[in-house]
């Protein structure tokens, strides 16, 4: 099966910067995966995302080497219009991307820009609202909604474009813990239902590791770790790169290192308690 995202030896340097923001970066993501991109602040994550959604090189100039392909199309050769239909981008703060007077108009905004026919637009907007469970909000004003609802509206606008790849930039950081858990559940559901691929930048991993297929860790523009969440979090290097290893996983790692026989799987607090509770 073809890769949805293929990054080959990508390097990028901003015009006035002495060093490369992304350096010799390779990544291949097959369709339907949820991939977490982590790493210390300033490590090049945002630059990498811009190179995937086309802002680099179409809006930001600089020293560009290598290639990024989304759904088989080379980003540097594609038009922004083509890319808008392949890559969806959800900003950290939904206020940055919702601004119309009603929820449904907001969701339709991207489609209107593409000149999609009215009937199809209606169908896609309804589908997106149904997927996110916000049909009852269709005629509400976005600014009256709660933060969790705004996040859903913004994501509906992204999904209405029917992208193969959706990028989420710290999607849970402004949400309360329960709303954050609901969003992560929704991402898993959309992956199952639509086969959408998700690339998620996130520092808070306690929720995401339950649904992610892979964690990629960047440092100083380079890829330094890549693997299933279990392998990355159980390894010794993740913490050194600023990856937030969940507290219970840290206990599990210490116990395993002390020779306590434990399953080598990421465990929830209750699962770990059950294992060590039955230790004697």
């Amino acid at each position, binding site marked *: 099966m073809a890769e949805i995202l293929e990054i080959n030896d990508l390097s990028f340097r901003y015009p006035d910067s002495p060093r490369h923001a992304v350096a010799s970066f390779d990544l291949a993501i097959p369709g339907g995966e949820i991939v977490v991109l982590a790493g210390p*602040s300033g490590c090049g994550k945002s630059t990498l995302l811009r190179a995937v959604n086309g802002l680099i090189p179409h809006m930001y100039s600089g020293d560009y080497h290598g290639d990024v392909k989304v759904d088989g199309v080379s980003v540097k050769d594609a038009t922004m219009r083509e890319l808008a239909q392949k890559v969806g981008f959800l900003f950290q703060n939904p206020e940055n991307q919702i601004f119309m007077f009603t929820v449904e108009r907001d969701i339709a905004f991207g489609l209107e820009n593409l000149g999609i026919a009215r009937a199809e637009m209606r169908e896609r907007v309804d589908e997106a609202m149904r997927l996110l469970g916000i049909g009852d909000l269709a005629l509400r004003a976005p600014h009256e909604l709660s933060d969790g609802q705004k996040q859903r509206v913004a994501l509906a606008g992204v999904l209405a474009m029917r992208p193969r790849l959706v990028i989420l930039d710290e999607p849970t*950081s402004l949400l309360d813990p329960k709303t*954050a858990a609901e969003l992560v559940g929704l991402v898993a559901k959309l992956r199952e239902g639509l086969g959408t691929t998700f690339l998620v930048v996130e*520092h*808070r991993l306690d929720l995401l590791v339950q649904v992610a297929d892979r964690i990629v860790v960047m440092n100083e523009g380079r890829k330094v770790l890549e693997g299933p969440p279990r392998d990355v979090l159980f390894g010794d290097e993740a913490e050194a790169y*600023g990856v937030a290893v969940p*507290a219970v996983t840290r206990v599990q790692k210490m116990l395993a290192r002390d020779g306590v026989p434990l399953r080598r799987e990421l465990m929830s607090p209750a699962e770990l308690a059950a294992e060590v509770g039955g*230790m004697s």
Partner: protein
Amino acid sequence: MIELKDVTFIHQNGVKALDGVSLRIESGETVGIVGENGAGKTTLVKHVTGLLKPSSGTVLVDGQDTRGTSTAALSRKVGVAFQNPDHQLFSESVEEEMAFALRNFGFSPELVENRVAWGLKMFGLEEYRKSSPLVLSGGEKKRLTLACILAWDPEVVILDEPTVGQDSIQKEKLAGTIRMLRSAGKTVVVVSHDIEFLWPVQPRVVVMKAGRIVGDGPASTLMLNGSLLDSARVAQPQLVSFYQALRKRPNQPFVDPLEARRWLEGESARQ
């Protein structure tokens, strides 16, 4: 140091953002404010800084009613780093950003220079001294706003969602900064959804829901109240869930992973 007496705040559109809130924070306390999106946490903070005045009730900061005190006078006592750093960064360079408030407060040029150097070093921003704040990453901007505030040494430091965009190493440093402020006798108020960050700091925790305070107590007892947290859409820290799921357990929940390991080791040795 901070006292809200039966404070109600009604927005122009009629929405009641605070509904009869009474809260007293003593000098030197570290307080975490948690609760669902829209519960009124940021509105409460804006009342302490004097940016908002109550529709009814009274807010006292250091004994002074915020209604009769200018925001400028209050800001000398209360430093706040808002959720979105873009709302408070405006200078041409990072060092200028830090120096701005200090000069406004009448610090001598020498002191301004020293404080700026201290802040840039403390928050790992030295390499950006001459850069525009706009080129910083989201996490770096957050650190800059914090550096700016701490530089003028206010009695009360308020941090609204300080961990957004911060990796775990920066969060660890931030927790260290809060502990340092606490040992210096400062009053620290942290508004955060990041329960895993708050837990090891062990603050007094205030839980808000729909404009009201529904829980208030030390983290070590309040975080055990799963049904209260659930109703306010707050999660339990992982180590608390782990502690409560153990069949046999110590009297107090584990504050950090090392403590859990030590106790479990002791247990297996006793068997």
